[in-house]
């Protein structure tokens, strides 16, 4: 294996390319029209255009990606997460073209991709599952029958997409009357996201925690599990903050969880990286949820506490190497790691997407901080894709230190031009319930509901004073970009450029212009030249 095509964009494409470079492997980027100048294209050794910006015409086009791999002479494809990463047809198309798919086999993706088949596999491996429908409910199953099944399982139920992932096509329903509309919404969302509107039902556990186990499995029969991750801070079933180890899982529970995860994988001959997701109820019982057959967004937290490069291992496993990491290294946590998913979303406006141009970006660094991103100053965050800007990861010797470092990094992180979820994270990491780790998967949605749209940018009075002082001085001192006449930038919105050398200003024109602004008044009052 010498050259890898990365069938993705954004932070994960950059992440995979970095691993390739570490391993002296050449990389090929693919890009859509709006991504011509995107970071992953520039990080790669080669790049090939694969079509228009909508994902269905580019990043989801199996034919074009296989053609790009052939044209560039790539001998392997890494799918990243999202897009085609869990598409068995894509894995099969790679195999048929003689290209190594860096991930599990098409058969394993098919099996685990069907959430109902995965549940049966878990049960066969002796792992408990959440009570629910054994058979998938295709589009032709009448609502009345589904309502009947739901009554048998017991309300509240979750309506989930069989092909699901990332919370799409998922609805919570507490009464039979609400079921038909939830089924309709789940089917339409699942159909749009996965091209399959088949659903299934699962009993909704009360206040469960989301615990998952990262696995690595080679082609020689070795399956290794890593320390669990906790991903209970979710908004509308999308993970927002992840950490490892879970603050509530005991070493005994860890031993049982990781053994159960490895058993599910071993029972189906799973290979490469994967994640087994569980729900942990308030009594400490765990239930199999599903298997994600890809590298996950939150994989860096595991890397931080185990010291392994999971993406590098995906590549090494795919080229036939033996997984020779000591099992203890993966099962005994070295410190604590937390990840915040920084999205182009405005938390003070109901988390509405906030695409657009980043006019200035400063990424935090320093002890224990890792930022996996792709955006830069000048980057246009497109409307076509997931609005993830970066994943901010903090490592500490223990959870309090990881939290302290994350808070520090959030204060240093500055994104201008678009709104991001950063102010929300600053707020969240100060909440007593987060610090004491008393949360569950509905914790954040309940909290957001109680706040009824209230914003998260809690600005203490002293910071408001600083902001007022800065705005005041900017208005008197600052020359608007464009108004100074030297930059040619359009007037109106823009960054106020500091022009602040008192001595340099003395020579400026102070003649008889009409008094139109504070600047003019300031000039009259001798405050400026």
């Amino acid at each position, binding site marked *: 294996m010498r050259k890898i095509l990365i069938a993705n964009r954004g932070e994960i494409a950059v992440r995979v390319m970095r691993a390739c470079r570490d391993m002296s492997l050449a990389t090929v980027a693919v890009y859509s029209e709006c991504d011509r100048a995107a970071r992953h294209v520039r990080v790669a050794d080669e790049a090939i255009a694969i079509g228009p910006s909508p994902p269905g015409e580019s990043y989801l086009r199996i034919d074009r990606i296989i053609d790009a791999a052939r044209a560039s002479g790539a001998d392997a494809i890494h799918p990243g997460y999202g897009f085609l990463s869990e598409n068995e047809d894509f894995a099969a198309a790679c195999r048929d073209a003689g290209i190594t798919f860096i991930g599990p086999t098409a058969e394993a993706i098919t099996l685990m991709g069907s959430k109902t088949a995965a549940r049966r596999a878990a049960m066969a491996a002796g792992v408990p599952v959440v009570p629910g429908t054994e058979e998938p409910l295709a589009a032709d199953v009448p609502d009345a029958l589904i309502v009947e099944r739901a009554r048998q399982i017991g309300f509240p139920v979750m309506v989930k997409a069989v092909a699901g992932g990332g919370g799409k096509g998922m609805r919570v329903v507490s009464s039979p009357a609400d079921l038909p509309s939830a089924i309709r919404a789940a089917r339409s969302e699942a159909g749009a996201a996965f091209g399959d509107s088949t659903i299934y039902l699962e009993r909704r556990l009360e206040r469960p925690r989301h615990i998952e186990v990262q696995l690595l499995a080679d082609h020689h029969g070795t399956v290794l599990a890593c320390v669990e991750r906790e991903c209970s801070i979710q908004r509308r079933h999308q993970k927002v903050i992840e950490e490892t180890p879970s603050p509530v899982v005991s070493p005994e529970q860890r031993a049982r969880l990781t053994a159960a995860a490895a058993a599910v994988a071993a029972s189906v001959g799973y290979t490469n990286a994967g994640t087994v997701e569980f729900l942990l109820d308030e009594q400490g019982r765990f239930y199999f949820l599903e298997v994600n057959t890809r590298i996950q967004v939150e994989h860096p937290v595991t890397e931080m506490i185990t010291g392994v490069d999971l993406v590098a291992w995906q590549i090494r496993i795919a080229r036939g190497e033996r997984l020779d990491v000591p099992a203890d290294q993966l099962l005994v946590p070295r410190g604590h790691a937390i990840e915040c998913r920084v999205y182009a979303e405005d938390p003070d406006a109901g988390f*509405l997407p906030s695409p657009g141009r980043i006019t200035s970006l400063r990424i935090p660094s320093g002890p224990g901080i890792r930022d996996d991103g792709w955006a830069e100053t000048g980057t246009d965050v497109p409307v076509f894709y997931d609005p993830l800007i970066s994943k901010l990861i903090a490592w500490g010797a223990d959870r309090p230190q990881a939290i302290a470092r994350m808070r520090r990094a959030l204060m240093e992180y500055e994104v201008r031009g678009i709104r991001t979820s950063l102010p929300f994270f600053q707020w969240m990491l100060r909440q007593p319930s987060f610090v004491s780790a008393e949360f569950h998967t509905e914790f954040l949605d309940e909290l957001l509901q109680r706040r009824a749209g209230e914003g998260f940018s809690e*600005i203490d009075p002293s910071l408001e004073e600083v902001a007022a002082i800065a705005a*005041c001085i*900017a208005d008197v001192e*600052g020359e608007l970009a464009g108004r100074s006449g030297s930059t040619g930038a359009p007037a109106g919105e823009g*960054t106020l450029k*500091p022009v*602040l050398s008192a001595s340099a200003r003395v020579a400026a024109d102070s003649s008889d212009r009409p008094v139109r*602004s504070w600047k003019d*008044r300031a000039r009259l009052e001798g405050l400026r030249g």
Partner: protein
Amino acid sequence: MTCDLETPGGRRTIELRRRGSAWEMTLDGRILSVDVTATGGRWSLLIGPDTSSRRSYEVAVERRSNGERIVYVNGLAVPVSIVDPRERLVQRRGNVSDGTGPRSIVSPMPGRIVKVLVREGDVVAAQQGLVVVEAMKMENELRAPRAGQVSAVKVVEGMSVEAKAVLVTLA
């Protein structure tokens, strides 16, 4: 000279005087010395009662329309509106954002209308959902910024809309 500003916490008045290379200002009755230096698109501010006891802040100021400023400090974006002679005029000419006049709810991004939750003539409460727009792979519910009566609904379900397209108008 005197600046009047609005911050989320209320109105503030700052009196500004130049003292050599620094500023002296009176903020809500307190006298502060402020030293300002530009560095790479940002400013370093040293603020305190005198030069021996000053706190250090790094800020960036961005201009929005109508006297609105966004001040970036400590990883937060603080909205500040400046009431100055020029901008008072601008605001008087194009008064669009006060709490009582007609209010248009626009799509913040290009997308597809998934659901229209209100009809013309409906009376809605503040924060009530109006339209669900699908964009960036997520369904987003646009809510009423204040209570009012729906005077116009400009979209139907399934329609594609551009950024800033007017979806609903509140009287």
